[in-house]
């Protein structure tokens, strides 16, 4: 059945985001907060991140053009941006932020400019991957397995097992 295939694809995409180091444990924490009452929580948080952080990136871009460079302001802006990235589990973005901050501490203007390009690159790459992931998830619809286990009555359980077996049979 196409839906099962889609769910498998989504699961593979999700796994690759972790395997390739784009996401870390914090993303899983967000998923654990998602439930039927708030089924799009993760997507909401990620969307909020991209909306909210855009202005920080803009401010950093502006600050990098100033002469002399105000490392204190840059560090402060980056601290906030890094904090938000950490909150959504954006692992590679976070790493590049750390590099940026060490260049700030060393008052290395070239280093800051260079690493900021990397920050923006990782930020954009992750955005595209997550957009794809969320889009696919929405298309595929909700899956049987929820974040928190449901307790079924014996009758419900029996029906769910029969349905599952029937679907598996039809899928072959």
């Amino acid at each position, binding site marked *: 059945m196409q839906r099962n295939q889609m769910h498998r694809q989504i699961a593979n995409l999700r796994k690759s985001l972790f395997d390739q180091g784009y996401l870390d444990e914090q993303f899983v924490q967000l998923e654990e907060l998602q439930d039927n009452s708030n089924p799009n929580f993760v997507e909401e*948080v990620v969307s*909020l991140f991209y909306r909210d952080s855009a202005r920080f990136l803009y401010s950093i871009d502006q600050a990098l053009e100033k002469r002399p460079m105000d490392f204190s302001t840059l560090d402060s802006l980056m601290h906030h941006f890094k904090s*938000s990235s950490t*909150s959504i589990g954006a692992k590679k973005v976070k790493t590049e932020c750390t590099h940026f901050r060490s260049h700030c501490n060393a008052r290395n203007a070239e280093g800051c400019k260079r690493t900021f390009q990397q920050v923006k690159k990782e930020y954009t790459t992750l955005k595209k991957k997550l957009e794809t992931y969320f889009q696919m998830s929405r298309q595929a619809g909700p899956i049987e397995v929820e974040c928190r286990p449901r307790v079924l009555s014996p009758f419900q359980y029996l029906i769910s097992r029969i349905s599952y077996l029937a679907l598996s049979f039809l899928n072959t």
Partner: protein
Amino acid sequence: MEINNLSCEPKELHVLAVDDSNIDRKVIQKLLQISSFKVTVVESGSRALQYLGLDGEQESDQFNDLKVNLIITDYSMPGMTGFELLKKIKNSSTLKEVPVVIMSSENSLTRIDKCLEEGAEEYLLKPVKLSDVRRLKDSILKSGPMNMDQIRTQKRKHKPDQLQILQTALDCHDQNMSPPTSPQQSQTKRARL
């Protein structure tokens, strides 16, 4: 009501969460709601003081109606830091008994020490996890209406190995500390006193 009777949970615990970041506010609100807290979220220390009735205009009895059981605040905020907010709460006659938890992305012993000495209940390393919140809730429920000195003495007996330096610094305040026998996580996630 028995302090030790954990099943005697009165009503929902009300927590005031303070964080200047949109994203962190959204996440902490969810973390707390899922852990069955009633949550009020504000974006700054000054808003928090306003809410608590400590904004200087009046130190009022309105607090009794709000009944905040816990305050959880980010450390690094523009304007008033979480540490400054902590000090103001602990200096208030009406609110000094309310446990205050500090959240921070900085794993700095100096900062942890400073906050705990000022009376913070706990120092949680960001990003805060569901397990941190659950543990915090248990801790608040167990503490009940005990005063802060009692809580501090009890919690100091359960520090992980990583805080040996902190322990030395705090030795002058408490003679009866016993270091734990086994190390916990490789990172100092939080300071438990």
